[in-house]
């Protein structure tokens, strides 16, 4: 679907749901589409989805939803093979899209972890970093979130079924938070909410519960499958956290080094505060 002039998909597309290093939560989000599962089954041909069915058919696939990050040597040939077998490759979730929470290892010594956890660390084959799928193969679309939003996934599917380029909004969480009528938790409660610099898509779940957003949908306007928008102004927000909410540098590092800590805008902000 990377070309713009492709005519609509008329047949049921063959869909694969593939997993790398991840917790399976995003795949579960697909299975949680309870009301729509029957219609979904009629609209698409689920050819490969081990989490849901033991009938695992080989490629090629029209659409592949990819969960998880690249953390082991054997992941590399597997993701290349998948790319070759797939027309439209869509990453689902923070792990596949940004490296995920396990990318915190990128700041640490993986060998030390292995020694601490396993009695025989020499048998553990693990890369020193956790990296997003887009660092290894071309990704057509990205669905962010930990986990993804199932309605957003449905929207992408209905677009693809019609032959339309999916439009995945990338403005800040705040717009949808206010559309839903939530009071700003940053302004009214002084919580260090990352909503202003975080990409929309979750439905403003945390603010709707009176909690501050912790950025699980990644940086606003950031997308490795599309030309970038305005990099989110993390520096200005962090300054506000520091001066008015009295967050100290180490708290700021933790704030930005979370589920999407290895994505450039968040990574740079955490680095900036690490040296303060």
């Amino acid at each position, binding site marked *: 679907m990377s070309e713009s002039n492709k005519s609509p998909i008329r047949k049921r597309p063959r869909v694969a749901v593939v997993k790398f290093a991840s917790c399976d939560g995003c795949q579960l989000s697909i299975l949680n589409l309870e009301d*729509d599962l029957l219609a979904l089954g009629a609209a698409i041909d689920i050819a490969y989805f081990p989490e849901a069915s033991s009938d695992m058919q080989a490629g090629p696939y029209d659409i592949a939803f990819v969960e998880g990050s690249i953390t082991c040597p054997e992941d590399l040939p597997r993701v290349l093979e998948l790319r070759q077998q797939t027309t439209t490759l869509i990453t689902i979730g923070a792990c596949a899209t940004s490296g995920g929470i396990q990318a915190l290892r990128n700041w640490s010594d993986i060998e030390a972890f292995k020694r601490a956890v396993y009695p025989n660390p020499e048998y553990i084959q693990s890369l020193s970093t956790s990296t997003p799928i887009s660092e290894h193969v071309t990704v057509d679309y990205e669905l962010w979130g930990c986990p993804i939003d199932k309605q957003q996934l449905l929207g992408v599917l209905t677009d693809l079924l019609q032959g339309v380029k999916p439009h995945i*909004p990338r403005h800040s969480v705040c*717009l949808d938070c206010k*559309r839903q009528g939530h009071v700003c938790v940053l*302004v009214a409660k002084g919580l260090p909410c990352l909503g202003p610099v975080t990409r929309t898509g979750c439905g403003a779940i945390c603010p709707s519960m009176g909690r501050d957003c912790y950025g699980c949908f990644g940086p606003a306007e950031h997308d490795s499958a599309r030309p970038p928008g*305005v990099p989110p102004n993390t520096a200005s*927000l962090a300054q506000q956290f520091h001066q008015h909410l009295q967050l100290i540098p180490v708290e700021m590092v933790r704030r930005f080094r979370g589920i999407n800590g290895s994505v450039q805008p968040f990574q740079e902000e955490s680095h900036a505060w690490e040296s303060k």
Partner: protein
Amino acid sequence: MSSGSVQTLPLQLFLREDFPQLLQTLKQLGYQTLGPVLSQGAIQWKAITTPEDFPIDWKDQQEPGSYRLEPDPSPRYFNIVHGPESLKPLTFAPRETLLVLDHQNNTFSAKDIQPDTTPTAILGVRACDLAGLGIQDQIFLHGTYPDPYYQQRRENLFLIAVNCTRAHATCFCASMETGPKAQQGFDLSLTEADEDFLIEAGSVKGLKVLDQLTSSIASEERIKEDEERIGACAASQTRSLPKANLPAALYEAHDHPRWDHVAARCLSCTNCTMVCPTCFCHGVEETPSLDFQQSEHTRVWDSCFTPDHGYIHGKNFRPTTKDRYRMWLTHKLAAWIDQFGTSGCVGCGRCIAWCPVGIDLTEEVQALSQPPL
């Protein structure tokens, strides 16, 4: 719809102990009543059924980037000036399905969805909010294409204003000449004191309600006293927006270095546009069912701070935060005057208080009016 020129009764005094009469009368006349109710650390428009629903014992403190509720011993119902919501969400819904389209035999049919039109009384409307509503009326009702969804909601409103006797650090309605006293557009207006209210009707509908209440003619002294309290509220406002030379000054400031300065702070997060009583940008979302037999055509609030607002096939006319902030401020304070004959700002100060980093448009305008250093 409200109109401000039907005052036939002299100002009346309405006792606090009789306040429940107002709620009962509105109910008898078939209105659902919304008022300021404590919610999520602020106030929001929610159903009011008894006087206990009001946020008595609380007041708000607003500063750039900060809104806090504090305990307050005052017995008043309307001690909290305002929350993040103006009247906007009640007339111009944040999310509203306009049409449902059904696919049938190689074609389709479109059906419009009627908005909820329960007659609604709103208790505690501030002068700035009435001014904002007046501006939105002009946009949605008085153009070439009146918006039927807005119109139906608007026609069912009964507006009870409360004149402000307390201003925040963020308020500047006096300089915009929209407050602190509600001038027009209300059905009833109240000025609250500890023991009683001055009450006045602004429309025939309002008069009808006022007739049902136990009230007496207010003394000259009392009226003067309230005028003074309102005047003191105006005088206490520290912020202001210079009106002089405004459309031209901002158009001419297009290349002013101050835009870079504000862009370094601005988050492009859209909060200022969401809380603004007059911002009207919206987009349309299309949501088909999975079997493509039905599709919903839904209007949602949009903002000039999103990456898609200025985008048209391959080109973004406003790619940077600087472009977006300049678009917002120039539109609000300059282009608006050319478009609608009035400023798009009513001086409510919400964009200052609810900006996560406390950007203050009055300060920006001040800086932009100075020649670049």
